[in-house]
């Protein structure tokens, strides 16, 4: 199963049999409202805190995925998930509601691919037959934790990004119909010494480049092997920087082939500055949008590389740098003969 140092190849090809995606009102006005199974018109979701609203979205995403499939929640063996909030409590409370054995992860915005990679690895190793993997984020909850109070009138620079309100999850199974997970590369922490929390794309780009380069080398394929290489939330700056870096290192990727979930979810006229971000950004982009393109036969093979900044508000105040990570997962359409 292990090829090279940090890449897994899944010979038993775990299947993503169903997905569930939930979003908020700002996402509903975005570029891809059809990517969501459920859209809320209120960011509070009638809860008394943003964190509870986030928990609710995670639960809903899982329930939707289960409901769309023909299995019951009792058949699911594990729930693998995480989020951005202190000690990942929204996810933990969602796990409590669902009453499932639970792996709690923290990889910031890279949690989506980390959870999918782990789910595929467990299934490939016969550790389970059904696993729910996913992640969630809430704009106001993240703003409050990492930046300022939501109503505070501070000016954000053009490099800042907008955290997605939503949740996305996948039901991964041993057998079934749907796109299959064929490989995954677990990234290393890359820290280029950047300290600006309002420029996460620029900080995360080297991590994405490192993971993509390693994945292609260890899987021994060219970039053209994939129809799409999808990054999680690099935004305008991170996309440009990482694409230039990849080309500088001799990896030939075309502009159309290299897409970013952070530039997919919202329209350009929404006030998102450099693009979308947050764990839900890559989860919704991957499960809601790009897997649908795969179902429609427009995409055959894709590599999803979700990137995360692993800083905390405290580490920032103590003048630490921003450590970043990227995990890659290769998804191929089930009908693919290879």
């Amino acid at each position, binding site marked *: 199963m292990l090829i090279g140092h940090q890449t897994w190849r899944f010979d038993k090809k775990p299947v993503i049999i169903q997905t569930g995606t939930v979003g908020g009102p700002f996402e509903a006005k975005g570029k891809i409202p059809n990517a969501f199974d459920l859209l809320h018109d209120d960011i509070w979701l009638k809860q008394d805190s943003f964190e509870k609203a986030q928990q609710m979205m995670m639960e809903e995403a899982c329930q939707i995925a289960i409901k769309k499939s023909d299995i019951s929640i009792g058949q699911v063996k594990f729930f693998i998930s995480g989020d951005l909030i202190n000690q990942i409590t929204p996810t933990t409370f969602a796990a409590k509601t669902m009453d499932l054995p639970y792996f709690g992860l923290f990889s910031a915005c890279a949690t989506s691919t980390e959870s999918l990679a782990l789910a595929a690895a467990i299934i490939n190793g016969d550790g389970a037959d059904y696993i729910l993997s996913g992640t969630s984020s809430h704009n106001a909850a993240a703003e409050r934790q990492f930046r300022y*109070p939501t109503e*505070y*009138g501070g000016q954000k620079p053009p490099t800042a990004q907008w955290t997605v309100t939503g949740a996305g999850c996948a039901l991964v199974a041993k057998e079934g119909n749907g796109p299959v997970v064929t490989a995954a590369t677990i990234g290393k922490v890359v820290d*280029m*010494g950047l300290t600006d929390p309002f420029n996460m794309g620029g900080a995360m780009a080297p991590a994405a480049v490192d993971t993509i380069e390693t994945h292609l080398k260890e899987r021994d394929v060219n970039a053209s092997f994939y129809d799409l290489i999808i990054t999680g939330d690099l935004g305008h700056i991170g996309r440009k*920087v990482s694409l230039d870096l990849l080309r500088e290192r001799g990896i030939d990727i075309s502009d159309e082939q290299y897409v970013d979930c952070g530039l997919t979810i919202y329209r350009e006229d929404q006030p998102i500055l450099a693009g979308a971000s947050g764990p839900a950004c890559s989860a919704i982009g991957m499960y809601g949008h790009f897997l649908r393109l795969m179902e429609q036969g427009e995409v055959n093979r894709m590599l999803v590389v979700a990137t995360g900044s692993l800083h905390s508000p405290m580490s920032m105040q103590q003048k630490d740098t921003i450590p970043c990570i990227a995990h890659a997962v290769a998804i191929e359409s089930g009908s693919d003969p290879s």
Partner: protein
Amino acid sequence: MADKKKKNLPPVAQEYQVFQQQRETKRTLFKNCIKAFLVGGFICFIGQIISTLYMYFFNFTEMTVGNPTVATLIFITMLLTGFGVYDRIGQFAGAGSAVPVTGFGNAVIASAIEHRTEGFILGVGSNMLKLAGPVIVYGVFAAFVIALIKTILTSWGGL
């Protein structure tokens, strides 16, 4: 300070930072200054209207009109913050809406709203001055130092 920090970084990181900076969206400093000047000026203009009205209709003098004017401006800020308008003004105006007393009011009110979920004592009470606290701490300290200097100069400096 920034250069000193950079020297401790490995050469790869230093090279990358230059590479990254070339591709970063630049802050529109000049445009931001103009916007800040206009919006900041407009807030002061409103303040001037309020104090003139107070002096005209009520029994205030130029010496006493300051406090009710500030209170009125902060009350308006409270409404704008609560209705979610002030943060949009802030994104447009930057320092223009942050520097006047309305910016201070917004920092206090936004924190109070934000921490309501943790209760009135440990939430609102403890966190209300989280952003505005430094202004008070260093404002009081600076006033103390200036008063001290003035006292020394007037008592012993013969001013």
